[in-house]
């Protein structure tokens, strides 16, 4: 039987506020345990939450970026359950009236086609603390620094049909929130966490199969692997005459499998009700317009503009718009050198390769966008040839010189285009290579094109790489052919 996979994602994004969603405690990552957990975060008696305006603004910005409905009124609810890292006994969340309504996110697939994934809603909630199950004499250690950190939970419709689409969707969300600057998107530090709902159904069937929810899948790669395993498990189960049960599973990256979490049935009875400590949040139109006017250009718009305005290929446009830092770097290189295609080639070729080799991100590139733009400009105006350009790039990368012009001057890399000088060098090379000239003369005409490479190499060497290779090629061919 042919099977179809149906996937929906719940993505938790930690918002990059300075203070917590309901208290004035710091959200900075990596502090000593419990030094950033105040009376509100600890759920001590008599404390009241006060909502952080920046968390609201960030959630709304996300909503505007995905063209979502932003309801005028949203309401906080209590999700009740007992766990030591949640000292209040409830998580303040939004069940019935979330701050962001239905919207959509465009994803780019491997073949550069795009697909729209519908967003059901996104809501604000507080993060819980962390439980440490290491050795504390058989007890569990609790760090509540993370308790109260604002989260935006983004819930998609079950619109994805394979693991690649799910990963592409997660990347799209990542790039939207980092473009907006509402989250650092750091998955390793848990700034973005993901629950995956997976089910399978016979191809052509409209009704959904029973789904399993895979918790806490925390990297792009794990999303693909967890789904691949889960899909295979469900298909095998059904084909062997079994039934998928609706349950929560945990992905184990070390064994590359998902495992059932034994949860009591009652654990899912959260008894939501409106939080009496918080009043309804009302957003007026003027506020929404104000936030809308401050939105940066978003990845999908940038990608489209790179193609239509700058004439880049779909692939180049997609790679260069993937992160805000990458896009800004590329745009600056383009501004300085004036040639989008060359800028794209250098950023994705020489620069990306060098960054990769040293495991650097583009923010930490030793060569600046201005320097790279300046270098490309010198290639475009024929001041240097391609080979010299690589030398200049390496020099700038190593901090030898502050601009391409400085390096070109210091290293004497300026391209020789003076025909007289080039002809003199060629004459000398020909005079010094009688054996090769004889070989050239005696070979089949169609093989001569290849043989000319030897002479070009010698001339380039004589010019210490500064001769214009096209020019050398032309003059050489004419001179050698004159000897036939």
């Amino acid at each position, binding site marked *: 039987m042919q099977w179809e996979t149906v996937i929906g994602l719940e993505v938790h994004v930690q918002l990059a506020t300075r203070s917590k969603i309901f208290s004035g405690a710091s959200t900075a990552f990596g502090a000593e*345990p419990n030094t950033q957990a105040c009376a509100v975060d600890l759920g001590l008696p008599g404390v009241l939450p*006060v909502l952080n*305006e920046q968390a609201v603004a960030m959630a709304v910005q996300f909503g505007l970026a995905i063209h979502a409905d932003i309801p005028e009124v949203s*309401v906080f609810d209590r999700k009740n359950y007992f766990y030591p890292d949640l000292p209040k006994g409830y998580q303040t969340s939004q069940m019935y009236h979330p701050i962001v309504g239905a919207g959509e996110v465009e994803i780019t697939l491997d073949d550069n086609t795009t697909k729209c994934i519908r967003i059901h809603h996104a809501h604000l909630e507080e993060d819980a603390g962390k439980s440490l199950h290491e050795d504390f004499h058989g007890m569990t250690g609790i760090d509540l620094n993370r308790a109260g950190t604002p989260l935006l939970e983004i819930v998609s419709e079950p619109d994805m049909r394979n693991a690649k689409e799910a990963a592409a969707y997660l990347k799209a969300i990542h790039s939207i929130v980092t473009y907006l600057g509402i989250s650092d998107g750091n998955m390793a530090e848990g700034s973005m966490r993901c629950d995956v709902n997976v089910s399978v159904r016979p191809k052509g069937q409209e009704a959904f199969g029973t789904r399993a929810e895979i918790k806490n899948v925390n990297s792009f790669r794990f999303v693909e692997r967890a789904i691949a395993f889960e899909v295979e498990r469900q298909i095998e189960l059904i084909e062997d005459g079994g039934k998928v049960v609706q349950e929560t599973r945990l992905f184990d990256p070390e064994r590359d499998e998902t495992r059932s979490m034994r949860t009591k049935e009652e654990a899912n009875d959260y008894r939501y009700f409106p939080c009496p400590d918080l009043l309804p949040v009302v957003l007026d139109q003027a506020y929404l317009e104000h936030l809308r006017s401050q939105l940066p250009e978003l990845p999908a718009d940038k990608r489209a503009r790179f193609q239509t305005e700058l004439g880049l290929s779909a692939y180049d446009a997609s790679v260069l718009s993937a992160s805000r830092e990458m896009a800004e770097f590329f745009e600056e290189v383009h501004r300085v050198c004036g040639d989008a295609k060359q800028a794209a080639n250098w950023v994705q070729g020489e620069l990306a390769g060098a960054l990769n080799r040293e495991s650097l991100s583009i923010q930490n590139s030793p060569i600046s966008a201005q320097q790279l733009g300046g270098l490309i400009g010198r290639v475009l105006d024929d001041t240097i040839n391609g080979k010299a350009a690589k030398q200049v790039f390496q020099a700038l990368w190593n901090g030898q010189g502050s601009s391409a012009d400085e390096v070109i001057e210091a290293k004497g890399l300026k391209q020789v285009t003076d025909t007289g000088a080039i002809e003199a060098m060629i004459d000398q090379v020909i005079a010094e290579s009688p054996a090769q000239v004889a070989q050239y003369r005696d070979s089949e005409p169609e093989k001569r094109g290849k043989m000319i490479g030897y002479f070009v190499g010698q001339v380039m060497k004589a010019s210490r790489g500064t001769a214009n290779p096209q020019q050398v090629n032309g003059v050489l061919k004419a001179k050698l052919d004159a000897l036939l």
Partner: protein
Amino acid sequence: MALEDSHVRRAAHLARIAVSDDQASSFVDDLSRILDMVDQLQSIDTEGVIPLSHPLDATQRLRADEVTETNQRDNFQRCAPAVEEGLYLVPRVVE
């Protein structure tokens, strides 16, 4: 819906409230009367009425995103039964 002992026990367990057998049966009576009243309310036509999420006719005030709290860990942990390396210790919980 007729309320039974088991419903009361379940609700009590979810809220982590200890309820004795005698209390459970008296809660069945009390809670049933509350549910009867809810049933009465259900018969009212509320078409077009906006659900009330808070009794106060006011909207949420927001605070500026500023860190105003300082580290009070030592004070807070003075009333904790067990702490170690800055962590609160609780009976082992296994996921």
